[in-house]
């Protein structure tokens, strides 16, 4: 698989070559053998000190996976993946100790600057550590502040969450500490047999987060600000499970506007959400994985299964996503509207540039009475990219009074990209009301020239027009992130015109 090799090479050049720093033995011992087998699954489970039931669960998934074939229906094209040529587990890579910001690639710093991320936070994100006996007081201050901040912030947050009774921890910990909850809910929304990538994830998932919000509790904070800094080392097979018990509310934000690189090309995450009666989960994603180089080589393959189950009456699940990275995106955050009067929402901005391929959308499955859903999708294609919206809205026979509104807008920049809309709509009862609107437009030269004549550069003009185009969705993001996402959008489209 040359593409994988290409990524590995690239990341090696960008990241620190760990072998040079003598971590060789350590790395080798913490790596599962190459390829996927029952041994690999056992190795992972053992590394995580998992109980027997968890190993059994993984093994069942693995056996199931062996009988499955890779899906090919998406409008994406990539070299065939050799699943036996991949590593499925390796301990987080020890990074070379960086002692000042001067040692970080200036290109990366430039991106942070454009995103408006404060330098102190950059120091944290890039893992700047104080050098022993470091003389320069300014340098030391950065690092000390970073350590001080992340520890104190994390502690304050943990205390507050504990007071509210919210459980928020890595899923590997939850498996050991709250087995009753994990056993009850894991795989209950995305079963181990669900699809090729979800099944693969079930067999080999590395880690992820677990959230449980008890009845009647409104989570006192966005589960994001603290998490954003700590999420850097999530592996390629992430598993997230969020449960909002009766009458509770939680807002969760994953991802980071900062550029994310990983030596693993294949990513297959699973996210499961469950809401009971009158509960609500708001899940926001900002994804900025490495998209590949200017010739379309390398880049992350992102095959994600995200699904929410509105299990209780009057419950609500809302997905908001800003997708700018990855070479391949295959992602359909969905809602099963099981409870009566439950509501599902999907707000999406999917940007593709260069040779990126995006096939993304949602499924709204109306099962309960008087369920409603809303889909607002904004696809932006630039460069030589292909951007597809694929969505399913379906009303079950018993889902009387189901309602959906869908608006899919595509914006094309340049004449070498493509935007595609593939909506599936199925109403199995006559009382359902489904509305679908779709538009495709191009950024016109006249609009760009108008902005440029007023003093904007070409890139600023594109950024402004695109941010106007996606405004409805940006408004759904938590405030602090909306600002960063807006800048990220402009950066993603740099060099797309001209």
């Amino acid at each position: 698989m040359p593409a994988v090799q290409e990524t590995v090479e690239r990341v090696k050049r960008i990241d620190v070559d760990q072998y040079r720093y003598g971590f060789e033995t350590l790395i080798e011992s913490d790596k599962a053998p190459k390829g996927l087998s029952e041994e690999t699954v056992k190795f992972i489970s053992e590394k995580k000190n998992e109980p027997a039931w968890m190993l059994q669960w993984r093994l069942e998934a693995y056996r199931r996976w062996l009988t499955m074939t890779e899906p090919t229906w998406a409008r994406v094209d990539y070299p065939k993946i050799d699943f036996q040529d991949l590593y499925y587990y390796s301990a987080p890579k020890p990074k070379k100790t960086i002692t000042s910001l001067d040692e970080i690639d200036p290109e990366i710093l430039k991106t942070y600057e454009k995103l408006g991320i404060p330098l102190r936070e950059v120091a944290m994100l890039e893992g700047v550590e104080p050098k022993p006996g470091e003389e320069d007081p300014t340098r030391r201050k950065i690092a000390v502040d970073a350590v001080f901040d992340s520890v104190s912030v994390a502690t304050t947050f943990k205390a507050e969450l504990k007071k509210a009774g919210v459980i928020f921890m890595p899923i590997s910990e939850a498996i050991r500490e709250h087995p009753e909850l994990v056993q009850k809910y894991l795989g209950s929304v995305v079963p181990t047999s669900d699809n090729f990538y979800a099944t693969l994830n079930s067999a080999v998932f590395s880690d992820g987060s677990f959230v449980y919000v008890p009845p009647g509790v409104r989570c006192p904070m966005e589960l994001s600000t603290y998490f954003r800094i700590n999420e850097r080392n999530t592996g390629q097979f992430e598993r997230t499970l969020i449960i909002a018990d009766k009458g509770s509310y939680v807002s969760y934000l994953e991802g980071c506007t900062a550029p994310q690189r990983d030596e693993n090309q294949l990513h297959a995450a699973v996210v499961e959400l469950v809401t009971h009666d009158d509960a609500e989960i708001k899940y926001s994603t900002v994804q900025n994985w490495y998209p590949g180089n200017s010739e379309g080589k390398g880049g992350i393959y992102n095959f994600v299964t995200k699904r929410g189950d509105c299990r209780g009456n009057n419950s609500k699940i809302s997905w908001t996503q800003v997708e700018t990275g990855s070479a391949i995106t295959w992602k359909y955050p969905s809602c099963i509207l099981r409870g009566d009067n439950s509501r599902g929402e999907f707000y999406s901005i999917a940007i593709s540039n260069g040779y990126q391929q995006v096939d993304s959308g949602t499924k709204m499955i109306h099962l309960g009475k008087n369920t409603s859903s809303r889909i607002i999708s904004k696809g932006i294609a630039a460069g030589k990219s292909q951007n597809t919206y694929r969505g399913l809205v379906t009303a079950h026979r018993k889902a009387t009074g189901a309602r959906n509104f869908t608006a899919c807008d595509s914006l094309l920049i340049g004449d070498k990209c493509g935007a595609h809309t593939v909506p599936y709509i199925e109403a199995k009862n006559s009382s359902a009301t489904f509305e679908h609107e779709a538009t495709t437009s191009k950024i016109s030269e006249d609009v760009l020239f108008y902005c440029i004549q007023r003093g904007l550069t070409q890139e600023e003009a594109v950024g402004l027009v695109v941010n106007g185009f996606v405004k409805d969705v940006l408004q759904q993001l938590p405030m602090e992130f909306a600002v960063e996402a807006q800048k990220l959008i402009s950066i993603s489209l740099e060099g797309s015109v001209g």
Partner: protein
Amino acid sequence: MALLEVKDLKVRVEEREILHGLTLTVNEGEIHAIMGPNGSGKSTLSHVIAGKPGYEVTDGEILFKGEDLLAMAPNERAAKGVFLAFQYPVEIPGVSTMNFLRTALNAQRKARGESEYSTPDFLKKVREVSKSLNIPQDMLKRGVNVGFSGGEKKRNEVLQMALFEPSLCILDEMDSGLDIDALRIAADGVNALHSPKRAMVVITHYQRLLNYIVPDIVHVMSKGRVVKSGGKELALELEASGYAQFEDAA
């Protein structure tokens, strides 16, 4: 002092020459009117000065404040003080007029090495300017020109002119699509902005606009050249006898 000097300008669009050696000098504080029939090259001239892509300058030069304008990117020209009021201002959905004005003004200031306006300072400035032009605040909250009437679009152009304080304003067929009341309001705005340092170039097909904006100098264009220049009475003469007399001269 000469603000804009166009010297023997030759311009092509896709192999076809539109301007065949045009010369024009505009001094600080002057109001020039450029008149001419359709296809005489009036709009081409305004586009080339502003730097719109798609035009190829094959000969001649344009100096702005003594500097080579053609060597500058269009946004640099804007920052230097060239403003083009468009014949058909575009709509930008989802971008509020306020946001657009601030982004543009700060981009220009940044390019000139000036400090960018903070939000409160900008709001104060934009309120002052819009008040002086009798532009309702409500218009600033709407998307740029989205759902604006023809008159509102032109007033938005005048507002930008007032806010950006350019030294050269080119008004391209400002009267098109306006009824007489809207025309008067827009023209009043333009007149209010005329100053001893700021020059205006008014491009128009009809004389009626010049009843409201009184030019110092009128140029007649035909077939890609300035064929006659004179005082404001030249416009009246044209209104009476038409452009036909100049077709042969060209």
